């Protein structure tokens, strides 16, 4: 048997991505269940996280997957298309804002498309990255990913 060690695992790129996916899921729920000012605030937070998440993914995660996993180019191409679709929906929602007539329906559409996209990433990209990349590389990339997000937020 390979011994499972109790050495503390260092947080790697995939952990960071999964944590953000979980947070995105929670924020979707929060927007849906909130009203008025709280809804507006939750939506602003969600929109900012989504933008930072997808942009940093497009810069760091998808190119790495494209270059290293099997059929990487095709797989990431589909992810980029999903991201483009979500970006458009999000832009519309930001423009109309919570409280507008069409918001709830469009928001449902965004939620479905983003959550499905996240599952595709987890199954078709992240799983393969964990298998193909050395653990140290993924730990270093976690840092790079978070720093990149910070810079994007600062210039937004």
């Amino acid at each position, binding site marked *: 048997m*390979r011994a499972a060690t109790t050495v*503390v*695992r260092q947080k790697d790129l995939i952990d960071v991505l999964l*944590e953000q996916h*979980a947070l995105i*899921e929670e924020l*979707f729920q929060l927007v849906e269940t909130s009203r008025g000012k709280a809804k507006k605030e939750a939506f602003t937070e969600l929109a900012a996280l989504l933008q930072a998440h997808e942009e940093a993914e497009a810069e760091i995660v998808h190119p790495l997957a494209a270059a290293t996993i099997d059929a990487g180019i095709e797989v990431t191409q589909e992810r980029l298309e999903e991201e483009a679709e979500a970006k458009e929906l999000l832009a519309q929602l930001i423009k109309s804002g919570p409280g507008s007539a069409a918001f709830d329906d469009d928001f449902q559409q965004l939620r479905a498309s983003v*959550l499905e996209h996240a599952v595709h990433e987890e199954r078709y990209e992240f799983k393969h990255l964990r298998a193909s990349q050395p653990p140290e590389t993924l730990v270093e990339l976690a840092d790079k990913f978070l720093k990149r997000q910070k810079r994007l937020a600062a210039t937004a």
Partner: protein
Amino acid sequence: MKLFNPLTEKGIPLDQHLRTWRELDSEPIDPDTADPYTICRAIVMNGIEVEAVFFGHHLARVCTDMELKRELAYTRYIEAQQQKAVNWLLPPIASPLQTTIAYEQVAVDLTSWVARMEPDPYLRQAYEFGVLEDFDHLYRYANLFEMIERRKAEKVVDSLTEVMPGRPTRLHHRHPADNVRDHYDKDTANPLSRLHALTVMSAEQQTMNFYMNVGPQYMEPIARQLYIEIGMIEQEHVTHYESLVDPGETWWERLVTHEYNEVYLYYSFMRQETDPRVKAIWELHLNMELAHLHAACDLMRRMDGREPEEILPRELPEPVKFEPNKEFLRELLATQIDLTTLGTGYVREAHERFERMQQEINRDGSPSEEVIDMHGAEFGSDYRVETEGQHPVEGLRQMAEAQR
């Protein structure tokens, strides 16, 4: 209220049961908006249909009458279609581990219900004993879930079921001989006892199937090993529950029990279901099962020369319900956590055969312990959902755990 009598309700004629691929491809449940118990009901009915299919295959393998074999092949095909329609309700967005947590929630709340309703004290003890183990599995998998998928089991169980230590998983590995229980007596058993044993056995069997198939999909060693360890316990659970059934029942009386149980469960869940789309599936399948039941009753009369009424409840028992069992489980935790089995009974002290098995099997560690240690090392403590206050057993409270 008019009583529902499965023996006189008509149902859908057998020759109208076939469905197309499109019809079988049920639109999945949305886990973000669904009642977690809707997913639990789908998991139970999948296990019931899987048992219907496999029981049917075993029956066919000992059936020498060609005409009969063809008749059985047809209903079995329908059972297989039903299994697809039911299992395809599960959310594709959920990972196997998330579904695993729902499987353990099923084991906890279904077995608790059965234990509470079971009229026979020996059988009741078997359910009370087993439920504390699946309760612990839920806790171990929830810790794994947060560790490797960064998500919280609370979103899956939705505070309907608590998540905290039960009888520790490493102690579930008993010598296989000690997993064989005494069976009820087919001539005197309460008909409800037959249904209970079949239901819980089917659920555990499907849990065993599920873990043996999804476990290797994970690449993290701790996940792979935890699925092996708990997968082996689910196999013990199948032995434990299946041995409650009287092996002297004829094939035909077992077939009748299977079909009656399907009617009973679809009826129960149809009554309780809150999602109208899912409710429609329970209702459709109920109407199919009525036809299966009547065909099975005819076979029992023809082959055994006996009346099915001899083994069936006089009226449909109280419908099975998914509901929180927190107080019931806390009471069991406080009183039965340190039980193990010896022969067909239960004891408190670790006897020699148990100790020997434990030494052998756990000699290079227990994944179920390691998962908690690893989670603690990374997150500062173990993961729990304790909605009703601290753990009823002092030594298992979270503070004590953290200080260790």
